[in-house]
């Protein structure tokens, strides 16, 4: 089994980046999703992520295999946080190493889109007005086959 995709503790972005070193790779593209202090015009204080871990890990392995087959890349690494996060915390980290930059950008962008669309992960936002809401984004309801 591979290292797990979901992380209940702070994502070690420096170690992840280091694990992408490849002598043949001329390009590394990294995407980091951070907890930001606003959503749809509302002020956000903090949030929680919950996941169906077993399914999320399985789909992540499928996405990674698909990206390796589809794009000319040397290495892929990613983590997604679960649990409680504060503003500025890293919620998701995706890194792609490749010989050339075009496939590195394409794979990284495809992976974050697929993660947001496919993985059974939910965020619960705590707003400055005291309300707390699970987000179930309508656009994410579309079941797009990979």
């Amino acid at each position: 089994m591979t290292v797990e995709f979901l992380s209940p503790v702070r994502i070690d972005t420096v170690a992840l980046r280091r694990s992408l070193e490849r002598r043949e790779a001329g390009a590394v593209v990294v995407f980091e999703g951070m907890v930001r202090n606003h959503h749809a015009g509302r002020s956000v204080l903090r949030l929680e992520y919950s996941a169906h871990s077993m399914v999320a890990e399985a789909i992540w392995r499928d996405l990674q295999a698909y990206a390796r087959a589809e794009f000319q890349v040397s290495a892929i690494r990613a983590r997604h946080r679960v649990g409680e996060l504060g503003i500025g915390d890293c919620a998701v980290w995706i890194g792609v190493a490749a010989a050339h930059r075009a496939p590195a950008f394409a794979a990284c962008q495809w992976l974050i889109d697929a993660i947001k669309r496919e993985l059974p992960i939910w965020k619960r936002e705590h707003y400055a007005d005291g309300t707390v809401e699970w987000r179930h984004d309508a656009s994410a309801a579309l079941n797009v086959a990979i």
Partner: protein
Amino acid sequence: MRVTVLYFARMAEIAGCANEIVEKAPASASALFDRVSDRHGFGFGRESVRVAVGDRMVGWDTVLRDGDEVAFIPPVSGG
């Protein structure tokens, strides 16, 4: 036939639990969803929900087996 149903996020909040055992479960995933939806009143239509059995996403017409772990996946918001 007996299955375990898993709930997440707003669905878990409405059900008041993260999982429950359903005895005399119907044969298909869709019929199971209809039954637990009637009981809990989730407010999510089947067109916006996906279903997983074990670690795999499956179609609504999937036939369930005794002991299955069935998860209903409301619209996601990861990333």
